[in-house]
C-alpha cells in the first residue's frame, strides 16, 4: 500500500513537470504575436492598435527570452503561484479553483446518476437476460457510437426545445444541472452497464454462487453476501479506465451547455491564448487525474485486500 502511494506520488511530480513543460513549449510555439492577441481579447478586436499591443507587451514582459520565461514559470509553480490570467488579470489559481468546483459538481452528479442507471440495469439484464438484455445491448451500442456532444444535443432538442421542460444552457438553478449531468451519465452508463452485466453474469454462474443458492440461501441474501463484493472489484477498476471518459465528457459537455467549469475555461483560454490559464487548467486536470486514479486503486485494495495486481 505504501509502495503504491509512493509510486503514485512520484508519478504526480513527473506529470506536473512533464505536462507543465509540454504546455509551456507548445504555447511558445504558437504563431502570431501574443501581445496583439491578448490586447484583442482584452479590448475587443476593433480597439487593437500597435500602441495597445506595446502596452500589453511591456506590462506582461512578453519580450523576455523563452528560457527566462520558463525559469520564471518553474519557480512560480513550486510556490503554487500559477500567475495571473492574461485576459482578466485575476490570479489563475483562484479562477481555477472556482471553475473546479463547478466541474466537480457536474462530474460527481453525473457519475452518481450513471451508477444509478448502470448498476440496476446491468444486474437486471444479467439476472433476467432475454429481451431486456438484447434491448440494453442495442441501446448501449447505439449510445457508444455517437460522441458525447451528440447525446447532449439530442437531449437539448428533446427536453429543452420540444418539451420545454428544462433550460437549454447556462448555470444557476438545479434545473440547469439536469441536462449536462444526464448527458454525462448516459455516456458513462452506456459502457459501464455492460461491464456490470458481464461481471454479474460471471459471478452468477460461478460455482461458489451456485453453491450458495443450492444450500438454500434466498437470492437477495446470496447476492449480498457472495455476489456484491465480487462484482464490485472489476467494476470499480473499470471506473478507473472510465475516468478518461469523465474528463473528456466534462470538457465537451461544459462547452455545449456553457457550464462555467474547467473544460469551458480551457476552451476559452485556448481561443484567447491565455497561457497561464491553459497551463493551469491542463496541469490541474493532469494532477486530478492521477489523484483520482490513486483513489480507485485504494478502493480496489479495500474491496479486495488480497492484494494481487496493484498499481
Amino acid at each position: 500500500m505504501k509502495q503504491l502511494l509512493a509510486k503514485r506520488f512520484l508519478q504526480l511530480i513527473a506529470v506536473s513537470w512533464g505536462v507543465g513543460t509540454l504546455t509551456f513549449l507548445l504555447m511558445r510555439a504558437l504563431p502570431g504575436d501574443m501581445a496583439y492577441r491578448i490586447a484583442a481579447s482584452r479590448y475587443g478586436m476593433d480597439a487593437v492598435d500597435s500602441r495597445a499591443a506595446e502596452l500589453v507587451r511591456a506590462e506582461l514582459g512578453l519580450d523576455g527570452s523563452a528560457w527566462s520565461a520558463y525559469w520564471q514559470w518553474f519557480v512560480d509553480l513550486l510556490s503554487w503561484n500559477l500567475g495571473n490570467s492574461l485576459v482578466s488579470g485575476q490570479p489563475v489559481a483562484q479562477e481555477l479553483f472556482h471553475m473546479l468546483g463547478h466541474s466537480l459538481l457536474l462530474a460527481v452528479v453525473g457519475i452518481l446518476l450513471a451508477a444509478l442507471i448502470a448498476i440496476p440495469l446491468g444486474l437486471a439484464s444479467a439476472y433476467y437476460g432475454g429481451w431486456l438484455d438484447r434491448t440494453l445491448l442495442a441501446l448501449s451500442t447505439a449510445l457508444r457510437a455517437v460522441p458525447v456532444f451528440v447525446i447532449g444535443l439530442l437531449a437539448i432538442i428533446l427536453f429543452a426545445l420540444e418539451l420545454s421542460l428544462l433550460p437549454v444552457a447556462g448555470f444557476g438553478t438545479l434545473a440547469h444541472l439536469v441536462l449536462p449531468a444526464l448527458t454525462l451519465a448516459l455516456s458513462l452508463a452506456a459502457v459501464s452497464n455492460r461491464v456490470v452485466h458481464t461481471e454479474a453474469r460471471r459471478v452468477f454462474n460461478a460455482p461458489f454462487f451456485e453453491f450458495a443458492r443450492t444450500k438454500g440461501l434466498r437470492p437477495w441474501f446470496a447476492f449480498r453476501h457472495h455476489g456484491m463484493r465480487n462484482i464490485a472489484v472489476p467494476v470499480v477498476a473499470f471506473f478507473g479506465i472510465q475516468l478518461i471518459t469523465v474528463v473528456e465528457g466534462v470538457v465537451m459537455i461544459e462547452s455545449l451547455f456553457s457550464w462555467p467549469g474547467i473544460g469551458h475555461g480551457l476552451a476559452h483560454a485556448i481561443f484567447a491564448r491565455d497561457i497561464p490559464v491553459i497551463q493551469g487548467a491542463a496541469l490541474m486536470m493532469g494532477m486530478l487525474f492521477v489523484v483520482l486514479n490513486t483513489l480507485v486503486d485504494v478502493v480496489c485494495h479495500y474491496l479486495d485486500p488480497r492484494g494481487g495486481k496493484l498499481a
Partner: protein
Amino acid sequence: MSLQLNTTQKIGAALLLALVAYALGAPLFKDGDSISQNLSAIMSAPGGQFWFGTDHFGRDMWLRLADALRLSLMMAALCVLTAATIGVTAGVLAATQGGWVDRLLDGVVTILLALPGLVLVLIFAAIVPGSFWMLYVAISLIQWIEYFRVSRAITQRMITSPAVQSSRLMGFGGWYLFKRHYWPAIAPQLLTLAAFGAANAILMMASLGFVYVGIQPPLAELGLMIVEHFPYYSDAPWLLVLPLSVLALMVLSCHLLGRRTQDQGEAA
C-alpha cells in the same frame, strides 16, 4: 496473418466498405463542388436536383457529406497506421532492449497517460487552429501508447519462451525473431486496437470541430457541420440528421469490426 471474421465483424466491415464507397464515389455521380454557394436554393429538401438537399448556404449536401466523410476516414487511416507503426516498433524495442530504452519509453508513456487525450489534442489544436496535420500529430501521439503497451507485454512474455530462447541460441538475429516470433503473436491483436483507435480518431476530430478548434469552415467536417446546422434543426432536420447518422454509422462500423467475440468486445 489470416483474417477470420465473425458475423458481427462482417457486418461492421460491410458498413465501413459502404461508407468508403460513398465517400470516394459520390463526386462521380454529381457535378459541381462542395463549397460553391447557391443562395437562391438554401435549405432545399432532399430529392430532385439535390439528393441530400442543400445547407444554409445552398451548398450540395451530397457532396459536402462525402467530403467530410473522406476527411474523417483519411484521418482515421493515417492515425491508425502511424500509431500502430510507432507503437509496435517502440513496444518490441522496449521489451527486447530493456534497460534505459524501456525506462525512457515508460516515463514518456506515464506522462502522456496522465493527461486525458482530448485535453492534449485541444492544446495541440490551439497551436495551429484548423490544421489537419496538427490534429493528426496530436491524435497519433496519444494512440501509439495502446499499441506500445500491448506489443511490449506480448513481446516480454515471448522472450522467455522456449521457442525464442532456442532461436536465439541458434544465432538468429533480431529481425528474424521479430518476423518469426513476435509479429505473429502481436498481429491478431492489432485489428481490435486499430478498429477502436479509428473510431476514437473520428470521434476526436468531430469533437474538436464541434468546439470550433478543429477543421475550420468552409471545409466540410462532420462535427463542424453538426454545430453549424444545429440552429436550423426545426426548419431543415435533414441537415442535422445526415452528418449525425454518418458519424454514428462510421463509429458503429469500427466498433463492430473490433468486436472479436460478444463478451470480449463488451469488456474492452
